[in-house]
């Protein structure tokens, strides 16, 4: 395993070790580039994961304070927990469910396809599906995505069978167990899914792809990658010419360290990445790094989500087996006749009893609430993932008062649903309920969005430096050796889970960075 000197200014320094940072780090290491990954969280291995929702949340979740505002219900129910994401080596790939879907062609051209939507800040991506296809193919191969590369789909569990039976009764056609980066058979030294459940708590069998036990050890084995856990980056430094030169971070002992670097890639998720750029303001860049457009932190997207649980007169036991066990894709197309642009997926979801109590209807009590929990065993559940509208007022800013233990202002997250999001959610609640009612549900619960797991758009990609923060390679428009490598690059969110696109972009970005370094452009 490599160990690089703090003064070694030849390294690429990556901040974050999740889908974006972990993948980028391994890809660069494979090409012979020296890489230091600084990860804010600790390093847990598979053996450390626990099948216990609250204990696992304590082990993995990012619970450092954030603040919230806006009309989204999360701001009321979870004012200091706007996101359910991970602070650990592997980032949110330890927690993710595994759904790996490609954008559709028109979803890279949201502004062109949907037109000028009032109150939205839509923009086309500077890349197309045709350009991304080879990178998606590499990502699917790397991650072992079912339904690609001749990999069979997973078997469906009870929760899936209820969804599929109801969906077929409604006439839905594209219903299957998904494109999941969970091994349905042994592959790449990892075994097949044991239907444990607890996908959100870290996969105990390692069947689910996570950078923790794929990309990171592979990169470390090259001798070109060093991962430093418990290293919270608080500031990015630059020289008089405006090039970034290194980062200041707080190590496991609470001491400040300075890592020099030739190239810096920010991959700390859509809250921490813009927070770090804003907290790195200097006299030369008074509004924060890479922020000449004023777009750093803006256009925060979190997908239009929500859940529907259906109660039946017989047991389902939805928690048995993979958490996201199947999908209905028929509503994913853009069909404005429904009263909104963009589309949504319906994907099974289950929570254990402790989290069902916490998330079914936060704040509720009394018999209306407990009669729902009484039916836990007879519930089937699905989650809605739809495209939400980017708005420049939905944004991450630095909190004016709250600071973290290092004295840095925390991220403050503002979000208001766009009317398009609200119309889509109502449609999805109706369709989700109809699926369950078609196979005998006696009650259905339209459940409000959880703290966000898909956090996107706060350093968006744009063709013009006026409209966004990074170019088509994730390179910031303003500073050529500063990159963004996580979901904050997303110009728009599409109607699908973002991880596959984050990984495909990271593989592509590694190629671009290595090329630019080779040509001495950076």
């Amino acid at each position, binding site marked *: 395993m490599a160990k690089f000197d703090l003064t070694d200014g030849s390294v690429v320094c990556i901040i974050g070790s999740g889908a974006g940072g972990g993948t980028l780090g391994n890809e660069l290491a494979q090409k012979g580039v020296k890489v230091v990954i600084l990860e804010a969280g600790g390093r847990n291995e598979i053996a450390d994961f626990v099948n216990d929702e609250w204990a696992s949340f304590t082990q993995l979740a990012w619970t450092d304070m954030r603040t919230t505002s806006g009309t989204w219900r999360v701001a009321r129910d979870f004012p200091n927990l706007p996101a359910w994401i991970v602070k650990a080596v592997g980032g949110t790939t330890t927690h993710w469910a595994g759904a790996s879907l490609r954008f559709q062609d028109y979803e890279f051209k949201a502004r062109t396809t949907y037109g000028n939507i009032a109150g939205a800040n839509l923009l086309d991506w500077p890349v197309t599906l045709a350009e991304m296809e080879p990178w998606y193919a590499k990502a699917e191969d790397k991650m072992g995505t079912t339904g690609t590369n001749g990999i069979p789909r997973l078997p469906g569990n009870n929760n899936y069978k209820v969804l599929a039976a109801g969906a077929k009764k409604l006439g839905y056609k594209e219903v299957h167990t998904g494109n999941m980066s969970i091994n349905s058979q042994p592959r790449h030294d990892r075994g097949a899914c044991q239907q444990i459940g607890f996908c959100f708590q870290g996969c105990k069998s390692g069947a689910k792809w996570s950078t923790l036990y794929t990309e990171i050890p592979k990169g470390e084995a090259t001798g070109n990658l060093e991962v430093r856990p418990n290293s919270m980056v608080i500031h990015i430094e630059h020289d008089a010419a405006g090039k970034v030169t290194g980062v200041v971070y707080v190590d496991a002992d609470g001491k400040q360290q300075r890592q020099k670097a030739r190239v810096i890639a920010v991959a700390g998720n859509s809250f921490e990445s813009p927070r770090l750029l804003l907290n790195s303001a200097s006299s030369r860049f008074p509004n924060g790094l890479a922020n000449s457009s004023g777009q750093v932190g803006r256009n925060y997207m979190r997908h239009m989500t929500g859940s529907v649980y259906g109660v039946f007169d017989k047991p389902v036991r939805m928690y048995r087996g993979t958490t996201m066990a199947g999908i209905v894709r028929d509503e994913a197309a853009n069909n404005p006749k429904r009263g909104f642009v963009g589309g949504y997926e319906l994907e099974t979801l289950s929570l254990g009893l402790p989290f069902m109590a916490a998330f079914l209807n936060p704040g509720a009590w009394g018999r209306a609430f407990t009669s729902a*929990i009484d039916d836990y065993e007879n519930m089937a559940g699905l989650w809605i993932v739809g495209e939400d509208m980017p708005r420049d007022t939905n944004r991450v800013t630095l909190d004016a008062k709250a600071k973290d233990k290092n004295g840095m202002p925390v991220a403050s997250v503002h979000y208001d649903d766009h009317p398009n999001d609200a119309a889509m959610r109502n449609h999805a609640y109706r369709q989700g309920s109809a699926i369950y009612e078609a196979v005998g549900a006696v009650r259905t619960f339209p459940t409000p969005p959880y703290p966000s797991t898909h956090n996107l758009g706060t350093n968006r990609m744009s063709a013009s430096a006026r409209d966004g923060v990074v170019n088509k390679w994730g390179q910031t428009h303003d500073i050529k050796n500063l990159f963004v490598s996580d979901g904050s690059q997303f110009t728009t969110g599409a109607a699908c889970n973002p991880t596959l696109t984050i990984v495909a972009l990271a593989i592509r970005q590694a190629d671009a960075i290595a090329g630019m370094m080779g040509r001495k452009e950076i």
Partner: protein
Amino acid sequence: MREIDKRTRVSRRVFLRNSATVLPAAAAALAGMTIGAEEAWAQGATTLKPHTMATLARMARDIYPHDRLADVYYIKAVAGYDALAAKDPKLAKMIEDGVAALDAAAQKAQKSTYLLVAWEKDRVALLTAAEKSPLFQKLRGELLVSLYNNPDVWPKFGYEGESASKGGYINRGFDDINWLPTA
């Protein structure tokens, strides 16, 4: 479908860990404990009054009423407040003041302490009026964990908890649903 054993189990170990100072060492007949100020578990409190302990348990039951759960699970969920109050005088005062206010409202409306108001509907009306109080807010929020994160209650709701050590569900009914209409 593979069914679940729902018979009552109360693990003494967890109980004692959560409520070391409340329970007499005997911890006898755990499963048979009921909510009442004269009960041994409430009398064993060292900082909070027995009446306060019993009131907290009654509040817990009224906030999240599950007829399938015996009183012991609600007692268990609030038992730890005595030890916490012993270490935190502000918390002790907040709890005692909250219970006193609830009792004052109950005396006015029902001529009884809250604990002894006979009908749940009437107690719920008192709780609704106290919804914004610090005691209610704290209790409601913490019960989500202290009540529902107790592995002893999980089988009552048909939840099986940890599965990795048992080999997951691949051979234990992940797809054994047998009542769905066939296309």
